[in-house]
Protein backbone atom coordinates (compact mmCIF):
# COMPACT_ATOMS: atom_id res chain seq x y z
CA UNK A 1 0.00 0.00 0.00
CA UNK A 2 1.68 3.13 -1.19
CA UNK A 3 -1.07 5.63 -0.63
CA UNK A 4 -0.81 6.85 2.91
CA UNK A 5 2.90 7.36 2.80
CA UNK A 6 2.51 8.87 -0.67
CA UNK A 7 0.25 11.54 0.70
CA UNK A 8 2.72 12.50 3.39
CA UNK A 9 5.58 12.56 0.95
CA UNK A 10 3.50 14.70 -1.37
CA UNK A 11 2.92 17.24 1.38
CA UNK A 12 6.58 17.38 2.33
CA UNK A 13 7.54 17.78 -1.29
CA UNK A 14 5.02 20.57 -1.84
CA UNK A 15 6.46 22.37 1.11
CA UNK A 16 9.96 21.91 -0.20
CA UNK A 17 9.08 23.20 -3.65
CA UNK A 18 7.40 26.23 -2.11
CA UNK A 19 10.28 27.11 0.19
CA UNK A 20 12.72 26.86 -2.68
CA UNK A 21 10.62 29.27 -4.72
CA UNK A 22 10.62 31.74 -1.84
CA UNK A 23 14.40 31.61 -2.23
CA UNK A 24 14.00 32.28 -5.93
CA UNK A 25 14.96 28.74 -6.87
CA UNK A 26 13.00 26.17 -8.83
CA UNK A 27 13.21 22.68 -7.52
CA UNK A 28 14.75 21.37 -10.73
CA UNK A 29 17.29 24.17 -10.86
CA UNK A 30 15.71 26.04 -13.75
CA UNK A 31 15.43 29.78 -14.00
CA UNK A 32 11.91 31.15 -13.59
CA UNK A 33 11.65 31.89 -17.31
CA UNK A 34 13.30 28.70 -18.49
CA UNK A 35 11.61 25.87 -20.33
CA UNK A 36 12.57 22.29 -19.62
CA UNK A 37 14.40 20.45 -22.39
CA UNK A 38 12.22 20.06 -25.46
CA UNK A 39 12.36 17.08 -27.77
CA UNK A 40 10.19 16.94 -30.88
CA UNK A 41 9.94 13.60 -32.68
CA UNK A 42 7.92 13.97 -35.88
CA UNK A 43 6.33 11.06 -37.70
CA UNK A 44 6.23 8.77 -34.71
CA UNK A 45 2.99 7.18 -35.95
CA UNK A 46 3.82 6.48 -39.60
CA UNK A 47 0.33 5.15 -40.36
CA UNK A 48 -1.39 8.36 -39.30
CA UNK A 49 -1.60 11.21 -41.81
CA UNK A 50 0.68 13.19 -39.51
CA UNK A 51 2.07 12.79 -36.03
CA UNK A 52 4.58 13.96 -33.51
CA UNK A 53 5.71 13.12 -30.04
CA UNK A 54 6.84 15.94 -27.81
CA UNK A 55 8.83 15.52 -24.63
CA UNK A 56 8.89 18.53 -22.36
CA UNK A 57 11.16 17.33 -19.62
CA UNK A 58 9.38 14.18 -18.49
CA UNK A 59 6.04 15.24 -19.90
CA UNK A 60 5.19 13.23 -23.00
CA UNK A 61 2.43 13.79 -25.50
CA UNK A 62 1.67 12.18 -28.83
CA UNK A 63 -0.50 13.91 -31.37
CA UNK A 64 -1.86 12.02 -34.35
CA UNK A 65 -3.57 13.60 -37.34
CA UNK A 66 -6.22 11.77 -39.31
CA UNK A 67 -7.93 13.26 -42.35
CA UNK A 68 -11.09 12.18 -44.07
CA UNK A 69 -13.65 13.79 -46.35
CA UNK A 70 -16.90 14.94 -44.79
CA UNK A 71 -19.57 17.62 -44.75
CA UNK A 72 -18.61 21.26 -44.14
CA UNK A 73 -20.39 23.34 -41.53
CA UNK A 74 -23.45 25.04 -43.05
CA UNK A 75 -22.07 28.54 -42.39
CA UNK A 76 -18.65 27.82 -43.95
CA UNK A 77 -19.47 25.66 -46.97
CA UNK A 78 -16.13 26.31 -48.66
CA UNK A 79 -13.85 25.52 -45.74
CA UNK A 80 -12.32 22.43 -44.25
CA UNK A 81 -13.00 21.47 -40.67
CA UNK A 82 -10.60 21.08 -37.76
CA UNK A 83 -11.67 18.91 -34.83
CA UNK A 84 -9.32 18.90 -31.87
CA UNK A 85 -9.75 16.35 -29.15
CA UNK A 86 -7.69 15.54 -26.06
CA UNK A 87 -7.67 12.30 -24.17
CA UNK A 88 -6.11 12.58 -20.76
CA UNK A 89 -5.95 8.80 -20.44
CA UNK A 90 -5.39 7.41 -16.93
CA UNK A 91 -2.07 5.96 -18.07
CA UNK A 92 -0.58 9.45 -17.99
CA UNK A 93 -1.22 10.47 -14.41
CA UNK A 94 -2.51 9.03 -11.14
CA UNK A 95 -5.11 11.81 -11.08
CA UNK A 96 -6.70 11.07 -14.47
CA UNK A 97 -9.85 8.97 -14.52
CA UNK A 98 -11.24 6.90 -17.36
CA UNK A 99 -14.43 8.29 -18.85
CA UNK A 100 -15.57 11.09 -21.13
CA UNK A 101 -13.40 14.24 -21.23
CA UNK A 102 -13.69 16.39 -18.12
CA UNK A 103 -13.45 20.19 -18.03
CA UNK A 104 -9.67 20.11 -17.93
CA UNK A 105 -9.20 18.03 -21.05
CA UNK A 106 -11.92 20.02 -22.82
CA UNK A 107 -10.20 23.29 -21.92
CA UNK A 108 -6.85 21.90 -23.05
CA UNK A 109 -8.21 20.78 -26.42
CA UNK A 110 -10.01 24.05 -26.99
CA UNK A 111 -7.00 26.22 -26.16
CA UNK A 112 -4.79 24.16 -28.47
CA UNK A 113 -7.46 24.38 -31.15
CA UNK A 114 -7.75 28.16 -30.88
CA UNK A 115 -4.02 28.63 -31.30
CA UNK A 116 -4.00 26.67 -34.54
CA UNK A 117 -7.24 28.09 -35.83
CA UNK A 118 -6.65 31.76 -35.04
CA UNK A 119 -3.08 31.84 -36.30
CA UNK A 120 -4.39 30.68 -39.66
CA UNK A 121 -1.81 27.90 -39.59
CA UNK A 122 -4.02 25.89 -41.89
CA UNK A 123 -5.68 27.54 -44.86
CA UNK A 124 -9.10 25.96 -44.47
CA UNK A 125 -10.20 27.13 -47.91
CA UNK A 126 -7.57 24.91 -49.46
CA UNK A 127 -9.32 21.96 -47.82
CA UNK A 128 -12.55 22.37 -49.75
CA UNK A 129 -13.22 19.48 -52.14
CA UNK A 130 -16.74 20.31 -53.36
CA UNK A 131 -18.24 23.48 -51.95
CA UNK A 132 -21.12 22.87 -49.59
CA UNK A 133 -20.79 19.12 -49.90
CA UNK A 134 -17.40 17.70 -49.26
CA UNK A 135 -14.38 19.08 -47.45
CA UNK A 136 -11.39 17.64 -45.64
CA UNK A 137 -11.86 17.09 -41.95
CA UNK A 138 -8.67 17.24 -39.92
CA UNK A 139 -8.80 15.34 -36.66
CA UNK A 140 -6.13 16.50 -34.24
CA UNK A 141 -6.04 13.89 -31.50
CA UNK A 142 -3.95 14.72 -28.46
CA UNK A 143 -2.92 11.67 -26.49
CA UNK A 144 -1.16 12.37 -23.21
CA UNK A 145 1.32 9.70 -22.16
CA UNK A 146 3.07 11.14 -19.13
CA UNK A 147 1.93 14.25 -17.31
CA UNK A 148 4.85 15.80 -15.52
CA UNK A 149 3.32 19.25 -15.87
CA UNK A 150 2.37 21.73 -18.58
CA UNK A 151 0.56 19.26 -20.77
CA UNK A 152 -0.91 22.23 -22.60
CA UNK A 153 2.30 23.52 -24.15
CA UNK A 154 3.46 19.98 -24.89
CA UNK A 155 0.14 19.35 -26.63
CA UNK A 156 0.07 22.51 -28.70
CA UNK A 157 3.67 21.93 -29.70
CA UNK A 158 2.94 18.33 -30.70
CA UNK A 159 -0.17 19.46 -32.57
CA UNK A 160 1.58 21.99 -34.77
CA UNK A 161 4.56 19.64 -35.25
CA UNK A 162 2.17 16.90 -36.34
CA UNK A 163 0.41 19.22 -38.77
CA UNK A 164 3.76 20.28 -40.26
CA UNK A 165 4.28 16.62 -40.89
CA UNK A 166 0.93 15.76 -42.44
CA UNK A 167 0.12 14.38 -45.86
CA UNK A 168 -3.39 14.83 -47.28
CA UNK A 169 -4.44 11.25 -48.16
CA UNK A 170 -6.10 12.21 -51.43
CA UNK A 171 -5.26 8.97 -53.14
CA UNK A 172 -6.97 6.78 -50.58
CA UNK A 173 -10.23 8.58 -51.24
CA UNK A 174 -9.83 8.90 -54.99
CA UNK A 175 -9.02 12.62 -55.14
CA UNK A 176 -5.74 12.44 -57.03
CA UNK A 177 -2.23 12.37 -55.65
CA UNK A 178 -1.35 12.75 -52.00
CA UNK A 179 -0.13 16.20 -51.07
CA UNK A 180 1.71 17.79 -48.20
CA UNK A 181 -0.67 19.72 -45.95
CA UNK A 182 0.49 23.34 -46.24
CA UNK A 183 1.15 25.00 -42.88
CA UNK A 184 1.50 28.75 -43.25
CA UNK A 185 1.98 29.90 -39.70
CA UNK A 186 3.47 28.40 -36.54
CA UNK A 187 1.56 29.23 -33.40
CA UNK A 188 3.38 28.50 -30.14
CA UNK A 189 1.75 28.55 -26.75
CA UNK A 190 3.59 29.47 -23.59
CA UNK A 191 2.07 28.65 -20.24
CA UNK A 192 3.20 30.23 -17.00
CA UNK A 193 2.21 29.48 -13.47
CA UNK A 194 1.33 32.60 -11.47
CA UNK A 195 2.26 32.13 -7.83
CA UNK A 196 2.15 35.13 -5.53
CA UNK A 197 4.39 37.57 -7.39
CA UNK A 198 6.34 34.92 -9.29
CA UNK A 199 5.88 33.80 -12.87
CA UNK A 200 7.05 30.26 -13.57
CA UNK A 201 7.30 29.39 -17.23
CA UNK A 202 6.58 25.77 -18.22
CA UNK A 203 5.57 24.50 -14.78
CA UNK A 204 6.41 20.95 -13.77
CA UNK A 205 3.84 18.77 -12.03
CA UNK A 206 5.54 19.46 -8.71
CA UNK A 207 4.96 23.14 -9.29
CA UNK A 208 1.41 22.64 -10.54
CA UNK A 209 0.60 21.02 -7.22
CA UNK A 210 1.20 24.38 -5.54
CA UNK A 211 -1.44 26.19 -7.56
CA UNK A 212 -3.66 25.73 -10.62
CA UNK A 213 -3.28 29.43 -11.45
CA UNK A 214 -1.80 29.96 -14.85
CA UNK A 215 -1.94 31.94 -18.05
CA UNK A 216 -1.43 30.57 -21.53
CA UNK A 217 -0.51 32.97 -24.30
CA UNK A 218 -0.14 31.76 -27.86
CA UNK A 219 1.61 33.89 -30.42
CA UNK A 220 2.13 33.41 -34.13
CA UNK A 221 5.07 33.71 -36.52
CA UNK A 222 4.63 37.50 -36.62
CA UNK A 223 4.58 37.80 -32.82
CA UNK A 224 0.85 38.49 -32.88
CA UNK A 225 -1.11 37.21 -29.94
CA UNK A 226 -3.58 34.64 -31.27
CA UNK A 227 -4.98 33.14 -28.09
CA UNK A 228 -4.91 33.83 -24.38
CA UNK A 229 -6.42 31.88 -21.52
CA UNK A 230 -6.38 32.72 -17.86
CA UNK A 231 -7.06 29.52 -15.95
CA UNK A 232 -7.46 29.15 -12.21
CA UNK A 233 -8.99 31.20 -9.42
CA UNK A 234 -6.91 34.34 -9.01
CA UNK A 235 -6.78 38.02 -9.76
CA UNK A 236 -4.40 39.03 -12.49
CA UNK A 237 -3.05 42.54 -12.59
CA UNK A 238 -2.69 44.43 -15.83
CA UNK A 239 1.05 44.80 -15.32
CA UNK A 240 1.49 41.08 -14.77
CA UNK A 241 -0.44 40.42 -17.94
CA UNK A 242 1.84 42.56 -20.06
CA UNK A 243 4.84 40.95 -18.43
CA UNK A 244 3.39 37.56 -19.39
CA UNK A 245 2.77 38.74 -22.94
CA UNK A 246 6.37 39.86 -23.42
CA UNK A 247 7.75 36.72 -21.87
CA UNK A 248 5.47 34.43 -23.88
CA UNK A 249 6.20 36.05 -27.22
CA UNK A 250 9.92 35.85 -26.59
CA UNK A 251 9.86 32.23 -25.46
CA UNK A 252 7.63 31.31 -28.39
CA UNK A 253 10.19 32.64 -30.83
CA UNK A 254 12.80 30.25 -29.57
CA UNK A 255 10.51 27.27 -29.70
CA UNK A 256 9.37 28.21 -33.18
CA UNK A 257 12.97 28.04 -34.33
CA UNK A 258 13.22 24.52 -32.92
CA UNK A 259 10.09 23.55 -34.84
CA UNK A 260 11.49 24.92 -38.07
CA UNK A 261 14.66 22.93 -37.58
CA UNK A 262 12.96 19.61 -36.96
Amino acid at each position, binding site marked *: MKTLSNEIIADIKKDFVYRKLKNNERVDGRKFDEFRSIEIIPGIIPRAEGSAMVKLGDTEVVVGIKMQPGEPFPDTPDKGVIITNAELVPLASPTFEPGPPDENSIELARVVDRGIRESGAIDLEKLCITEGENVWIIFIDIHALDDDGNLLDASSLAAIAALMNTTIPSEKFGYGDDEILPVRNIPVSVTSLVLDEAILVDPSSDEEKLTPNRVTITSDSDDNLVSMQK*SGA*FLLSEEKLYELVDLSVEKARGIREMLRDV
Partner: protein
Amino acid sequence: MEENQKFIVNGKRIDGRKIDELRPIKIEAGVLKRSDGSCYLEMGNNKIIAAVYGPRALHPRHLQDPNKAVIRYRYNMAPFSVEERKRPGPDRRSVEISKVSREAFEPVVIKELFPRSSIDIFIEVLQADAGTRVAGLNAASVALADAGVPMKGMVTAVAVGKVDDHIVLDLFKDEDNYGQADIPIAMFIRDGKIEGITLLQMDGQITKDELKEAIKLAKKGCLEIYRLQKEALFKRCRGEDFVE
Protein backbone atom coordinates in the same frame (compact mmCIF):
# COMPACT_ATOMS: atom_id res chain seq x y z
CA MET B 1 -23.10 39.59 -43.72
CA GLU B 2 -20.18 39.50 -46.08
CA GLU B 3 -16.73 38.85 -44.73
CA ASN B 4 -15.19 41.79 -46.54
CA GLN B 5 -17.95 44.24 -45.63
CA LYS B 6 -16.79 47.34 -43.77
CA PHE B 7 -17.64 47.23 -40.10
CA ILE B 8 -16.70 50.77 -39.25
CA VAL B 9 -17.53 53.74 -41.42
CA ASN B 10 -16.85 57.28 -40.27
CA GLY B 11 -16.21 56.06 -36.76
CA LYS B 12 -19.63 54.41 -36.56
CA ARG B 13 -20.30 50.70 -36.31
CA ILE B 14 -22.94 48.81 -38.28
CA ASP B 15 -25.43 49.12 -35.46
CA GLY B 16 -24.79 52.84 -35.10
CA ARG B 17 -22.60 52.64 -32.03
CA LYS B 18 -19.34 54.43 -31.53
CA ILE B 19 -16.21 52.36 -31.12
CA ASP B 20 -16.22 52.68 -27.34
CA GLU B 21 -19.95 52.42 -26.84
CA LEU B 22 -21.79 49.62 -25.08
CA ARG B 23 -24.97 48.08 -26.41
CA PRO B 24 -28.13 49.00 -24.48
CA ILE B 25 -28.14 47.15 -21.19
CA LYS B 26 -31.06 46.28 -18.96
CA ILE B 27 -30.55 44.65 -15.59
CA GLU B 28 -33.18 43.55 -13.11
CA ALA B 29 -32.47 41.81 -9.84
CA GLY B 30 -34.74 39.41 -7.97
CA VAL B 31 -36.85 38.28 -10.90
CA LEU B 32 -37.35 34.66 -9.83
CA LYS B 33 -39.18 33.29 -6.82
CA ARG B 34 -37.65 29.90 -6.17
CA SER B 35 -33.98 30.77 -6.23
CA ASP B 36 -32.21 32.61 -3.42
CA GLY B 37 -31.06 35.32 -5.79
CA SER B 38 -31.65 36.06 -9.44
CA CYS B 39 -31.14 38.52 -12.23
CA TYR B 40 -32.51 39.16 -15.69
CA LEU B 41 -30.12 40.89 -18.02
CA GLU B 42 -30.24 42.13 -21.58
CA MET B 43 -27.11 43.29 -23.34
CA GLY B 44 -27.92 44.11 -26.90
CA ASN B 45 -29.99 41.19 -28.10
CA ASN B 46 -28.64 38.85 -25.45
CA LYS B 47 -31.29 37.74 -23.01
CA ILE B 48 -29.90 36.07 -19.93
CA ILE B 49 -31.33 34.78 -16.68
CA ALA B 50 -29.11 34.02 -13.72
CA ALA B 51 -30.12 32.30 -10.51
CA VAL B 52 -28.19 31.52 -7.36
CA TYR B 53 -29.01 28.78 -4.87
CA GLY B 54 -27.14 28.68 -1.63
CA PRO B 55 -25.07 28.62 0.36
CA ARG B 56 -26.79 25.27 0.90
CA ALA B 57 -25.70 21.86 2.15
CA LEU B 58 -23.79 19.99 -0.53
CA HIS B 59 -24.62 16.37 -1.35
CA PRO B 60 -23.19 13.84 -1.83
CA ARG B 61 -20.76 14.42 1.03
CA HIS B 62 -17.61 13.51 -0.85
CA LEU B 63 -18.04 16.68 -2.88
CA GLN B 64 -17.91 18.85 0.24
CA ASP B 65 -14.92 20.92 1.24
CA PRO B 66 -14.59 20.94 5.04
CA ASN B 67 -13.04 24.40 4.99
CA LYS B 68 -15.13 26.39 2.56
CA ALA B 69 -18.04 26.54 0.19
CA VAL B 70 -17.78 24.94 -3.22
CA ILE B 71 -18.84 27.19 -6.08
CA ARG B 72 -20.56 25.53 -8.98
CA TYR B 73 -21.36 27.37 -12.19
CA ARG B 74 -23.53 26.11 -15.01
CA TYR B 75 -23.71 28.13 -18.20
CA ASN B 76 -26.44 26.75 -20.44
CA MET B 77 -27.96 27.80 -23.75
CA ALA B 78 -31.64 27.25 -24.42
CA PRO B 79 -32.10 25.19 -27.60
CA PHE B 80 -33.88 28.13 -29.25
CA SER B 81 -31.32 30.76 -28.24
CA VAL B 82 -29.24 30.41 -31.40
CA GLU B 83 -29.78 30.46 -35.14
CA GLU B 84 -29.65 26.69 -35.61
CA ARG B 85 -31.40 24.79 -32.82
CA LYS B 86 -28.88 23.64 -30.23
CA ARG B 87 -29.23 20.16 -28.81
CA PRO B 88 -30.10 20.40 -25.12
CA GLY B 89 -27.42 19.66 -22.58
CA PRO B 90 -23.83 20.76 -22.11
CA ASP B 91 -21.45 20.81 -25.06
CA ARG B 92 -17.69 21.37 -24.94
CA ARG B 93 -18.02 25.12 -25.32
CA SER B 94 -20.37 25.49 -22.37
CA VAL B 95 -18.20 23.23 -20.22
CA GLU B 96 -15.23 25.52 -20.83
CA ILE B 97 -17.25 28.68 -20.26
CA SER B 98 -18.64 27.25 -17.02
CA LYS B 99 -15.11 26.49 -15.83
CA VAL B 100 -13.56 29.89 -16.46
CA SER B 101 -16.68 31.66 -15.20
CA ARG B 102 -16.60 29.68 -11.96
CA GLU B 103 -12.93 30.57 -11.59
CA ALA B 104 -13.78 34.22 -12.12
CA PHE B 105 -15.91 34.18 -8.95
CA GLU B 106 -13.63 32.00 -6.82
CA PRO B 107 -11.36 34.85 -5.61
CA VAL B 108 -14.31 37.19 -5.04
CA VAL B 109 -16.83 35.14 -3.06
CA ILE B 110 -15.99 34.77 0.64
CA LYS B 111 -16.23 31.00 0.66
CA GLU B 112 -14.61 30.43 4.03
CA LEU B 113 -17.83 31.40 5.78
CA PHE B 114 -19.68 28.36 4.49
CA PRO B 115 -17.75 25.13 4.92
CA ARG B 116 -19.36 21.95 3.53
CA SER B 117 -21.84 23.93 1.48
CA SER B 118 -22.29 24.81 -2.16
CA ILE B 119 -23.10 28.05 -3.91
CA ASP B 120 -24.74 27.18 -7.20
CA ILE B 121 -24.83 29.70 -10.00
CA PHE B 122 -27.01 28.91 -12.99
CA ILE B 123 -26.98 30.91 -16.20
CA GLU B 124 -29.59 30.38 -18.88
CA VAL B 125 -29.04 32.05 -22.23
CA LEU B 126 -32.48 32.60 -23.74
CA GLN B 127 -31.27 34.55 -26.76
CA ALA B 128 -27.66 34.82 -27.85
CA ASP B 129 -26.02 37.76 -29.60
CA ALA B 130 -22.28 37.50 -28.90
CA GLY B 131 -20.83 38.12 -25.49
CA THR B 132 -23.12 35.66 -23.71
CA ARG B 133 -20.40 34.58 -21.28
CA VAL B 134 -19.69 38.13 -20.15
CA ALA B 135 -23.40 38.93 -19.99
CA GLY B 136 -23.77 35.78 -17.88
CA LEU B 137 -21.02 36.92 -15.51
CA ASN B 138 -22.68 40.31 -15.08
CA ALA B 139 -26.00 38.67 -14.34
CA ALA B 140 -24.41 36.14 -11.98
CA SER B 141 -22.75 38.91 -10.04
CA VAL B 142 -26.07 40.64 -9.44
CA ALA B 143 -27.79 37.36 -8.60
CA LEU B 144 -25.09 36.54 -6.03
CA ALA B 145 -25.55 39.93 -4.41
CA ASP B 146 -29.32 39.47 -4.53
CA ALA B 147 -28.89 36.13 -2.75
CA GLY B 148 -26.91 37.86 -0.06
CA VAL B 149 -23.78 35.85 -0.77
CA PRO B 150 -20.88 37.77 0.82
CA MET B 151 -18.40 38.99 -1.78
CA LYS B 152 -15.33 41.17 -1.62
CA GLY B 153 -16.68 43.21 -4.52
CA MET B 154 -18.43 42.79 -7.85
CA VAL B 155 -17.46 40.88 -10.96
CA THR B 156 -18.16 42.91 -14.07
CA ALA B 157 -17.39 41.73 -17.56
CA VAL B 158 -17.37 42.83 -21.15
CA ALA B 159 -15.93 41.67 -24.43
CA VAL B 160 -13.62 43.84 -26.44
CA GLY B 161 -12.40 42.98 -29.88
CA LYS B 162 -10.85 44.00 -33.13
CA VAL B 163 -12.81 44.70 -36.28
CA ASP B 164 -11.61 46.53 -39.36
CA ASP B 165 -8.32 47.00 -37.51
CA HIS B 166 -10.09 48.99 -34.81
CA ILE B 167 -10.32 47.98 -31.19
CA VAL B 168 -13.99 48.18 -30.25
CA LEU B 169 -16.06 47.68 -27.13
CA ASP B 170 -18.79 45.07 -26.66
CA LEU B 171 -18.95 43.15 -29.95
CA PHE B 172 -22.31 42.16 -31.33
CA LYS B 173 -22.90 39.01 -33.33
CA ASP B 174 -21.64 40.03 -36.76
CA GLU B 175 -18.57 41.70 -35.32
CA ASP B 176 -17.86 38.57 -33.33
CA ASN B 177 -18.37 36.23 -36.28
CA TYR B 178 -16.40 38.17 -38.85
CA GLY B 179 -14.09 40.29 -36.73
CA GLN B 180 -10.37 39.88 -36.16
CA ALA B 181 -10.31 39.21 -32.43
CA ASP B 182 -12.59 38.65 -29.46
CA ILE B 183 -11.43 39.23 -25.88
CA PRO B 184 -13.88 38.48 -23.07
CA ILE B 185 -12.64 40.09 -19.86
CA ALA B 186 -14.03 40.15 -16.35
CA MET B 187 -12.84 42.67 -13.78
CA PHE B 188 -13.05 42.53 -10.01
CA ILE B 189 -14.37 45.90 -8.88
CA ARG B 190 -14.42 47.02 -5.26
CA ASP B 191 -15.89 50.36 -4.21
CA GLY B 192 -15.96 51.48 -7.81
CA LYS B 193 -12.29 50.67 -8.31
CA ILE B 194 -10.95 47.96 -10.63
CA GLU B 195 -8.75 45.65 -8.58
CA GLY B 196 -7.75 43.05 -11.14
CA ILE B 197 -8.65 40.78 -14.02
CA THR B 198 -10.59 37.70 -12.95
CA LEU B 199 -11.43 36.26 -16.37
CA LEU B 200 -9.46 36.65 -19.55
CA GLN B 201 -9.67 34.77 -22.78
CA MET B 202 -8.78 35.78 -26.27
CA ASP B 203 -8.84 34.48 -29.78
CA GLY B 204 -7.97 36.24 -32.97
CA GLN B 205 -4.90 38.22 -33.93
CA ILE B 206 -3.74 41.29 -32.05
CA THR B 207 -0.51 43.00 -31.10
CA LYS B 208 0.53 43.81 -27.58
CA ASP B 209 -0.33 47.46 -28.13
CA GLU B 210 -3.77 46.55 -29.31
CA LEU B 211 -4.19 44.42 -26.21
CA LYS B 212 -3.37 47.44 -24.07
CA GLU B 213 -5.92 49.52 -25.93
CA ALA B 214 -8.45 46.72 -25.57
CA ILE B 215 -7.98 46.49 -21.85
CA LYS B 216 -8.32 50.24 -21.50
CA LEU B 217 -11.64 50.03 -23.34
CA ALA B 218 -12.71 47.05 -21.25
CA LYS B 219 -12.07 48.98 -18.05
CA LYS B 220 -14.18 51.86 -19.30
CA GLY B 221 -16.98 49.47 -20.29
CA CYS B 222 -16.85 47.54 -17.04
CA LEU B 223 -17.15 50.68 -14.95
CA GLU B 224 -20.27 51.66 -16.88
CA ILE B 225 -21.78 48.22 -16.43
CA TYR B 226 -20.81 48.24 -12.78
CA ARG B 227 -22.94 51.35 -12.32
CA LEU B 228 -25.91 49.57 -13.88
CA GLN B 229 -25.38 46.52 -11.68
CA LYS B 230 -25.34 48.69 -8.57
CA GLU B 231 -28.43 50.53 -9.76
CA ALA B 232 -30.32 47.29 -10.28
CA LEU B 233 -29.40 46.11 -6.79
CA PHE B 234 -30.36 49.48 -5.36
CA LYS B 235 -33.78 49.31 -7.02
CA ARG B 236 -34.20 45.80 -5.68
CA CYS B 237 -33.40 46.96 -2.15
CA ARG B 238 -35.89 49.77 -2.46
CA GLY B 239 -38.39 47.06 -3.15
CA GLU B 240 -39.31 48.23 -6.58
CA ASP B 241 -41.33 45.71 -8.51
CA PHE B 242 -39.93 43.87 -11.44
CA VAL B 243 -41.36 45.47 -14.53
CA GLU B 244 -41.00 43.57 -17.76
